[in-house]
């Protein structure tokens, strides 16, 4: 299977959008492109199973290397393992749903859909890359569209939020660049040159002192993308100001770029430092989880609620990575998938409510279940998934993280796990408060009586995401089996060091 | 014809150059600025010709270059005057201080 297709499809879609005339043509092209991409992702999954079934035990499948810039050893090196496939599937789901919910974007629709597709291009490129530089390249591709999406189509103090988001993410990128160059100049291939190649780098051991120096750069840099405390403040403002689809992309895809990078680049390539700094990661993650949850409790705007809860939930990803056990890392990857789907769903539901009632303040809403049962049900499902109800993806992911974290017998790690577990109670509090006030209860405003329920495109978007959530939630063994081989390679690398030290 | 020492010519061209530079830095009138630039170009021309004559009398490289520069100066004057006319049309002034919309 040729992975470059994952770049060509969005590219073709983007060009198609530029050529097309009028909202109707544009959105159809965007949707077709996204659906094709989803199908392609499905085929990739099948091809992956086929390869594994034939006994192909290679770490990465469908590899392809093209020298990009010889003197610096930059390569366009692509390939996937289970983890990347999970992320690609997530991206494909969220992109289709995102395009569906933006169906009625009248204002500058060409540019809007173009940027959405461009963002997805960056994400796909990032997930298939096996060359740190190429990854960085695609990461940057994914940042700029966000700035424009929020700045142009956003609401509220959008310029401020867009600027804040772009600057903080750029700051993260700068840290990543330093970490990346640090890795590059610490590496030495057989031929004696430096390398950006992830697999090459994984084979060699970067000197401990260098690791200790550069790990924080790489980890915090990627961490900013996934809202590591205290660099999470772009999340609430950014999400709150972004248009619905952008919020979905931001939370569903973009925050996952960070988690994936933390795991694939920082932790995998610098395992000694990961062990040494584990306590810092866990500390920050625990703070994010518990403090994010409490901060969520006090929010009054639905988007802020979901944004802060994202901070809390992404803390689980970092916690899972920081605990450095196989189970917890599996859990972290599952949490990325799960959080991506459920936050996208949540934002979609909030967007649907907002587009009708023109308010997102919990206090002004109320009784929506009676007026728009479909949207309200979606809202409640997203909420229940967020609070970790079995049957939805959140439960399987969180429990895997908890179980993995608990395998670490150190008592401070235990305390961190207990605090993380405690956050699910706080989550229940804020989710039920939000749902209780806005969805249930007496009608917030008499003018709501005439509002309509979801349109077909909103329904399809919600059903698609709910389908994803249910598949992960009902059959988590499927996801675990998919990512297990990938995390095993990471664990092996980590284990060698653990015994070697 | 008595031999004029090279230094005298260089002195002349240097003086010309700095007169031009001074004009360029201090004048705000675009025509004057253009004229100053021409002065600087001509000082360079003198240098080229002088060095050609005194150091490599059997070659013509310096002369070629000065012809080249004269041509370019003419083209430059044409472009610059076109800009100046446009500026005058839009701002009714050719003072550079007046055209500051793009500042910061």
């Amino acid at each position: 299977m040729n992975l470059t297709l994952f770049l060509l499809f969005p590219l073709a879609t983007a060009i198609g959008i530029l050529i097309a005339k009028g909202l109707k043509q544009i959105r159809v092209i965007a949707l077709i492109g996204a659906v094709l991409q989803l199908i392609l992702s499905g085929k990739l999954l099948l091809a992956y199973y086929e390869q594994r079934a034939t006994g192909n035990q290679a770490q990465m499948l469908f590899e392809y290397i093209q020298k990009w810039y010889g003197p610096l050893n930059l390569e366009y090196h692509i390939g996937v393992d289970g983890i990347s496939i999970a992320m690609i599937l997530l991206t494909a789901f969220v992109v289709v749903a995102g395009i569906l919910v933006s169906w009625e974007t009248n204002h500058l629709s060409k540019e809007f859909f173009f940027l959405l597709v461009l963002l997805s291009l960056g994400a796909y490129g990032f997930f298939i890359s096996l060359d740190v530089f190429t990854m960085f390249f695609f990461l940057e591709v994914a940042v700029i569209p966000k700035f424009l999406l929020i700045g142009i189509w956003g609401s509220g103090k959008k310029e401020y939020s867009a600027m804040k988001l772009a600057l903080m993410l750029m700051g993260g990128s700068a840290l990543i660049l330093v970490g990346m160059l640090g890795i590059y100049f610490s590496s030495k291939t057989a031929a004696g040159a430096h390398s950006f190649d992830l697999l090459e780098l994984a084979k060699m051991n970067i000197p401990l002192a260098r690791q200790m120096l550069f790990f924080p750069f790489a980890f915090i840099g990627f961490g900013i993308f996934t809202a590591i405390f205290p660099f999470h403040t772009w999340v609430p403002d950014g999400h709150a100001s972004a248009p619905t689809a952008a919020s979905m992309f931001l939370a569903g895809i973009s925050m996952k770029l960070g988690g994936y990078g933390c795991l694939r680049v920082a932790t995998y390539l610098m395992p000694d430092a990961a062990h040494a700094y584990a306590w810092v990661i866990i500390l920050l993650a625990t703070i994010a989880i518990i403090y994010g949850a409490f901060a969520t409790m006090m929010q009054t705007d639905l988007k802020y609620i979901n944004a802060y809860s994202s901070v809390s939930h992404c803390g689980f990803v970092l916690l899972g990575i920081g605990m450095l056990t196989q189970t917890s890392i599996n859990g972290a990857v599952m949490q990325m998938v799960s959080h991506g789907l459920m936050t996208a769903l949540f934002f979609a539901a909030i967007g649907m409510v907002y587009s009708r009632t023109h308010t997102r303040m919990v206090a002004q809403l109320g009784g929506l279940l009676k007026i728009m049962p479909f949207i309200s049900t979606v809202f409640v499902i997203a909420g229940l998934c967020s609070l970790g109800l079995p049957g939805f993806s959140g439960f399987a992911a969180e429990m895997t993280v908890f179980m993995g974290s608990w395998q670490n017998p150190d008592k401070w790690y235990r305390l961190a796990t207990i605090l993380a577990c405690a956050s699910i109670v706080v989550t229940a509090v804020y989710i039920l408060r939000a749902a209780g006030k806005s969805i249930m209860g007496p009608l917030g405003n008499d003018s709501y009586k005439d509002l309509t329920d979801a349109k077909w495109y909103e329904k399809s978007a919600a059903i698609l995401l709910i389908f994803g959530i249910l598949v992960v939630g009902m059959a988590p063994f499927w996801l675990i089996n998919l990512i297990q081989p990938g995390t095993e390679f990471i664990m092996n690398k980590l284990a060698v060091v653990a015994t070697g030290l | 014809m008595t031999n004029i020492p090279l230094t005298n010519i260089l002195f002349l061209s240097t003086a010309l150059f700095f007169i031009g530079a001074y004009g360029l830095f201090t004048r705000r009138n675009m025509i004057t600025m253009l004229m100053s630039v021409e002065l600087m170009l001509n000082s360079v021309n003198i240098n080229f010709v002088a060095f050609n004559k005194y150091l490599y009398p059997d070659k013509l490289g310096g002369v070629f270059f000065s012809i080249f520069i004269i041509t370019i100066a003419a083209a430059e004057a044409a472009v610059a005057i076109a800009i100046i006319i446009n500026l005058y049309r839009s701002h009714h002034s050719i003072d550079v201080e007046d055209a500051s919309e793009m500042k910061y």
Partner: protein
Amino acid sequence: MSQPLQIALIPLLPLACFLVLGLFGRKHLSSSAGVIGTLSLLVSTLLSLQTAYQYFFVSGKVNGVFQKLVVFQYNWLEFAPDLSINIGLMIDPITVMMLVVVSFVSLMVHLFSLGYMKGEERFATYFAFLSLFTFSMLGLVLSSNIFQIYLFWELVGVSSFLLIGFYFEKPSAVAAAKKAFIVTRFADLGFLIGILTLAFYTKTLDFGLLIERLSTASTYLSDINAASFLGISALSWGLVLVFIGGAGKSAMFPLHIWLPDAMEGPTPVSALIHAATMVVAGVFLVARLFPVFALSDPEALKLVMYTGAFSAFFAAVIACTQTDIKRVLAYSTMSQIGYMMFALGVSKYGGEDGLGYMASMFHLFTHAFFKSLLFLGAGAVIHMVHSNEMKDMGGLRKMMPITHLSFLIACLAIAGVPPFSGFFSKEEILMAAFESNRLIYGVALLTSGLTAFYMFRLYYNIFWSKPADVDGHHHGEGTLAMKIPLILLAVLAVVAGFAPIAQWVTPDGLPIESHVPITFSILPVSLAMGGILLATRMFKTQTELPTQIAQQMGGIYKAAYHKFYIDEVYLFVTKKILFNLIGKPAAWIDKNIVDGLMNLLGKITAKLSELIKGIQSGKVQDYALYFFGGIAGLVLVFIYLWK
């Protein structure tokens, strides 16, 4: 039909029903939803009975001992090679008993709801939720894996949330639903950490292995006993934490506060969830892990005992003062579950010592019938008078003869009057307590007197007290669908006591010869009679006596009436401490300090650029001058400094 399929169908039928009704009910099945739900549950019930018959009479015993049979298992989520959630179906005596209880009571409630919820706009949704709950509860009792039980534990929690909040337009219902979910969620946190602890040391999540490893001498057991935290062994921590989860669901003090509020839900729901099934999940959980409690950690079992006994007494006292009939029943439920808990607590493992365990399960069995009957009866009453308050009732015995009679039977059963079912199970419990701990026995006796008193207070206030005050065009007693469950349950409330639970449900699978001497029964029965007589004296006709007594009791009455201010304490902790001392500062810090730092960074950059932007004047002449100055500088450097 093969056995695994047959057992799997018991929970799967309600699940299918939930999916069908949930997806299509609103539009297409709004009238037939009730019938679909009821029929599917009827099949489930029949299958449960068939399973029970098979298990107890045909295949359950090997060498005279009832076995734990795992009939199906699927690796659902593998955490690590030895730690995985294997979704499975396990049957053993308590499971089989619970299957029958849950499916039967649920069937009765479905039937009753056909009449009770008639004309409700979200009729189909209601039945969908009921099915979801039934599925979760059946899944819970069939669990073969401790994590599986946690999974279904959460699901029953959420279906309870959905059902309590069914009347979502009533703010009090929403608040009650939220409260129920959050309080039990808080307790579940303990359960979760307990599971993590136990799983860490035993390297398994499977019930069979877990119990085996922790109840017989093994390296696992010595490991978990050796590890300790704050001077308490990891085993005790694990068990106590698991018990906290159970206590939350079973409304044990001090996690009981959600149960009375949960009465905001439709009354049949209260009968199903908050009387017969979900609230006994905690008892079920302790019973499931009983060998570990009894054999390896009797200290943890003591905690179960004291919690149960205290809750039983505490709730009984409050029940005497409440005026909302559903709340009286709620506190009585809590009290009866307290009975079951301390019965487990006083029990030991093996042979005749397992009497308490057996008694607890027996009481669970009988209680399910008479308590759901009480709730359904209360439902019928509320349906008629449209109020929960005692003051709006009275003298209803003539207008609702069937309800009256069945309610009376249930009251007699719960009061422990022979030969009704409650008598037998309560006697066993008292016997077990008597043999093990006299203090508990005393509390239990006192509570049983109180129970008789408050139940008959309730009975007289509804059906006697004063002449009926209902306007002419009332519903009557309701439809046939509402009467049948009352009659069936009344029959069971009478005869369930004769079920040979002692032969079937014991800790070690061996039958116990129950031996309550007739002389032993004299004291409790006369106490119950005393309670009934006192209630008759006070409440049969409307007198000033109750108010006078209440006034004489003074502070105690007031405290009990206000439920000993536990709610207020919780409110203080959550509103004042969690919200004001943690939530608000967290939000404030985030907005002002963490985000403030980021903004400060931005501001500093902006200020700096403000300072130096003058240099970038945009004037070409200035740039040329800088350029020229630079060249001149370089020239000077080259001439004078470059040697």
